[in-house]
């Protein structure tokens, strides 16, 4: 041990620090393409196996290999799974960012770092553990070419020892992660053990962070939202899928391909009960979906912001010609190419009003992987019921990060294929018109090619109730007013909000999608730190359901929490709320590309409520690199 290291160690040895058990965040800073994802997921799963509520968030660059990437794992005995703003335990593996990563930590944090980086020289108020990764990996991985990939598993072993994660569970997590790849399992197990052994022999535990067994995760699954949505699509009976690769939505369709090949191939004939096409672009993807839906198939696509922009014209066609379509938008940061690998809720207005002319679309907004699964099924039912595009607004945080969940329930509800004309119905009606509002709900009856019922000519140009070309002013007005009526009908059919009313709360909070977790944690902070009680309204769909005005009426001020700059959901609310309700609305906005966190919400809200709020500590982990392309 060098003299300087000794000095540092003496300086930060502050005994009697209270133990922090199952309530801290670990940030791992690595280089992408270095196999760190395996090490991170093994760490995440080992905590799950320890029975602790846990969440993992990947902050990665738009790059294949060689750029900085950060992975945050949060253990929370209270079950908070939103991002924690503060980093408590850093694993610094990336020479490029190590200095900044360490300098932005709060005092008292712990750091495991690659020995040659000499990070201990930078700060005296941290607990630093140096690990010679290269020296450790060489004996366990004789093949020099593989060392880069195995090296990261060593920090899992080090953390297991330092934090108290049980090694057999770590090994179990590793087996699960690498499956049947025996050689990879053996190499990584050796690396894991090398890390443990090193920590046991050379590192004296001096930080306050501990993992202890809980019993909060029995039976839980680990899954990302994109895969969850894919399972939902398969269970919804999707038959035609058209897509174009785009981060962060690609893995939705790729997962779907995997599941469909396994579970949707006819066992006797070996033929597929589905068609999945990688289209030439997002325009063609939606065109194929519209054509397939028009011909009666359950059809979907998945995309992100740039794809949404391209789909604009077709979205208007589907709205006006009234063909079903299911579109998953896994939102990323815009505008333009924006931050392709960072999260946002920035396409809310765009999705709600996508296309020219007067258009309105149904939006479903899942907050959890379970809702990705159930709302995928809802989306197909609603698209066919209302003969219109339905957008499922996810985001990168939900779609690409790994979440814990109860296992998904098998669907019990039959699927809704909507208002299809039948021979009997035709007889009862006497005369059929494709766009005639027979039932007063704005929803007409449709036929599909090949069903033997009357054909019609579908068009995006002006048409009357019979589907004939028309430029008559009364035909146009009748038709678009019926479409508005149809949209009104949808209010009662979209997923209702989840509302928690606090008895004496003067303040209401509205959040949606992944903002939910930070909002929930923030409500606890507001109550515990400032004595502020809040009611909560988790919005799950657009059009807004009928109870939204009443929630606003019942509170003096209502904060709408969103992950975009322009308060997009609040703006949509303004379009239909009364002026006195609009006057009560406030915004809490978060749009840095990182998932929203509770601290940011609490500080912003309290400051707007007139509380003195401590200036946010400078720095934190930057989680992003500048420069380079």
């Amino acid at each position, binding site marked *: 041990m060098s003299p300087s290291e000794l000095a540092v160690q003496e300086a930060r040895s502050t005994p009697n620090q209270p133990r922090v058990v199952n309530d801290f965040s670990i940030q791992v800073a690595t280089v992408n393409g270095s196999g760190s994802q395996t090490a991170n997921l093994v760490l995440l799963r080992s905590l799950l196996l320890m029975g602790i509520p846990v969440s993992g968030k990947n902050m990665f660059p738009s790059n294949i290999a060689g750029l900085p990437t950060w992975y945050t794992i949060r253990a929370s005995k209270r079950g908070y799974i939103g991002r924690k703003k503060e980093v408590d335990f850093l694993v610094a593996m990336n020479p490029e960012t190590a200095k900044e990563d360490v300098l932005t930590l709060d005092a008292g944090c712990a750091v495991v770092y690659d020995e040659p980086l000499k990070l201990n020289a930078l700060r005296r108020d941290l607990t630093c553990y140096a690990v010679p990764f290269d020296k450790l990996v060489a004996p366990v991985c004789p093949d020099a070419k593989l060392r880069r990939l195995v090296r990261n598993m060593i920090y899992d072993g080090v953390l297991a020892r330092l934090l108290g994660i049980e090694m057999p569970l770590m090994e179990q997590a590793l087996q699960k992660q690498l499956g049947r790849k025996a050689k990879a399992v053996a190499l990584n197990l050796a690396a894991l053990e090398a890390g443990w052994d090193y920590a046991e022999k050379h590192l004296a535990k001096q930080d306050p962070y501990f993992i202890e067994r809980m019993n909060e995760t029995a039976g*839980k*699954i*680990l*899954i990302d939202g994109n895969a969850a949505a894919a*399972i939902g699509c*398969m*269970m*919804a009976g*999707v*038959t*035609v899928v*058209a897509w174009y690769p785009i981060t962060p939505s690609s893995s939705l369709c790729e997962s779907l391909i995997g*599941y469909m090949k396994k*579970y*949707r191939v*006819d066992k006797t*004939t070996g*033929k*597929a*009960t*589905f*068609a999945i*096409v990688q*289209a*030439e*672009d997002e*325009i*063609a993807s*939606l*065109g*194929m*979906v*519209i*054509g*397939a*839906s*028009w*011909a*009666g*198939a*359950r059809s979907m696509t998945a995309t992100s912001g740039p794809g949404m922009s391209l789909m604009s*014209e*077709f979205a208007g*066609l589907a709205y006006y*010609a009234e063909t079903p379509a299911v579109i998953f938008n896994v939102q990323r940061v815009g505008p333009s190419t924006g931050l392709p690998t960072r999260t946002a809720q920035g396409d809310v207005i765009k999705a709600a009003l996508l296309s020219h002319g007067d258009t309105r679309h149904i939006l479903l907004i899942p907050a959890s992987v379970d809702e990705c699964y159930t709302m995928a099924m809802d989306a197909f039912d609603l698209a066919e019921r209302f003969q219109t595009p339905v957008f499922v607004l996810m985001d990168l945080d939900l779609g690409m990060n790994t979440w814990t969940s109860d296992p*998904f329930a*098998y*669907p019990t509800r*039959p*699927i809704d294929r909507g208002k299809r004309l039948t021979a009997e119905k035709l007889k009862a009606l006497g005369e059929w018109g494709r766009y005639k509002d027979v039932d007063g709900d704005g929803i007409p009856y449709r036929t599909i*090619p*090949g069903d033997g019922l009357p*054909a*019609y*000519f*579908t*068009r*995006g*140009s002006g048409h009357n109730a019979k589907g004939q*070309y028309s430029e008559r002013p009364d035909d146009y007005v009748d038709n678009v007013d019926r479409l508005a009526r149809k949209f009104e009908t949808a209010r009662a059919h979209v997923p209702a909000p989840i509302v928690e009313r606090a008895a004496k709360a003067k303040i209401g909070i509205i959040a949606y999608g992944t903002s939910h977790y930070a909002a929930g944690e923030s409500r606890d902070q507001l109550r515990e730190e400032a004595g502020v009680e809040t009611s909560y309204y988790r919005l799950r769909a657009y059009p807004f359901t009928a109870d939204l005005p009443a929630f606003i009426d019942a509170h003096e001020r209502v904060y709408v929490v969103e992950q975009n700059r322009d308060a997009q959901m609040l703006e949509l609310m303004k379009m239909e709320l009364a002026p006195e309700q609009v006057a009560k609305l406030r915004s809490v906005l978060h749009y840095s590309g990182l998932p929203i966190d509770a601290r940011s919400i609490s500080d912003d809200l309290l400051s707007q409520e007139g509380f003195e709020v401590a200036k946010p500590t400078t720095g934190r982990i930057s989680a992003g690199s500048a420069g380079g392309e």
Partner: protein
Amino acid sequence: MATPAKVNRIGLEPQVYKGGKTTLCAGCGHNAISERIIEAFYEMGVDPQRVVKLSGIGCSSKSPAYFLGGSHGFNAVHGRMPSVGTGALLANKHLLAIGISGDGDTGAIGIGQFVHLMRRNLPIIYIIEDNGCYGLTKGQFSPTADLGSKLKTGVVNDLPPIDTCALAIELGATFVARSFSGDKKQLLALLKAAIAHRGTVMLDVISPCVTFNDHEGSTKSYAYVKDHDDPLEEVSFIPFFEDINVDYLPGSAQEVAMHDGSKLMLKKLEEDYDPTDRIGALRRLHEAARRGEFATGLIYIEPDRDDFLTLLNVVDEPLATLPLERVRPGKEALEEIMEGLR
């Protein structure tokens, strides 16, 4: 006693194959094409219930309203008909799809979707009603306008044309033909063969625009096209359901066997032209273009290549109407997935 109505082989009268009254200009080549489509589908005895008509935007794309009134139609958005047609066929592989596009709809805004449609060899009859100009927006040049061709206003086109047939052959279409709206016999034979073909049919039909592109100096006027029509062969089509023998002198005709048992008889006008020779076909197109002529007839055919729907290996029934029990995996499947995620 009334004379029995004329019917086709599935017992339907010609009237059934007609559509709404055309709103295109009197004398528009597109109307002649619609008439040939009506005849071809009637004579082939195609059930209109099985047919879907698709189009993009433009004069050409209005025309599906003017034929096969008993079939479903979809007038989509500009240049994007191929994707809508692809979707419809994915949903129901038993449909017979005919797509009507124009030279602007295909060659300009729709070139991307056109390219990928050809690549996939999707079983669709794709017709370009090609007049070298944008009619509905009053006569601007389209990408198939020839170099040096003149607008009514005197503006001369200084860009080379896109040859949609050469492009289609290059990209993988398996039935590529060019015709002229004024050549009833050739167009009808090609349309019938198109119905019999399994794969992408790309049929470029020169169809003069009487209002904006029928003047002296235009290379897509009736007069110019008549003078420069350069037929490769005399095309006759013998459907599988007709027992006809045509005798040709040995070596004077080429017979092409179609997927459904029909036959295309090609009476040779040029000794060495072989429409199954891809490179020869491309060379011949370039030669005609260099001479300022339109090579018409069957330019290229590859009757046996797997079409896109075959490659996807989907079940025999339409995907659109599979019952729930065939498209929702059982409880044990979901349990297996969940177990894998624990």
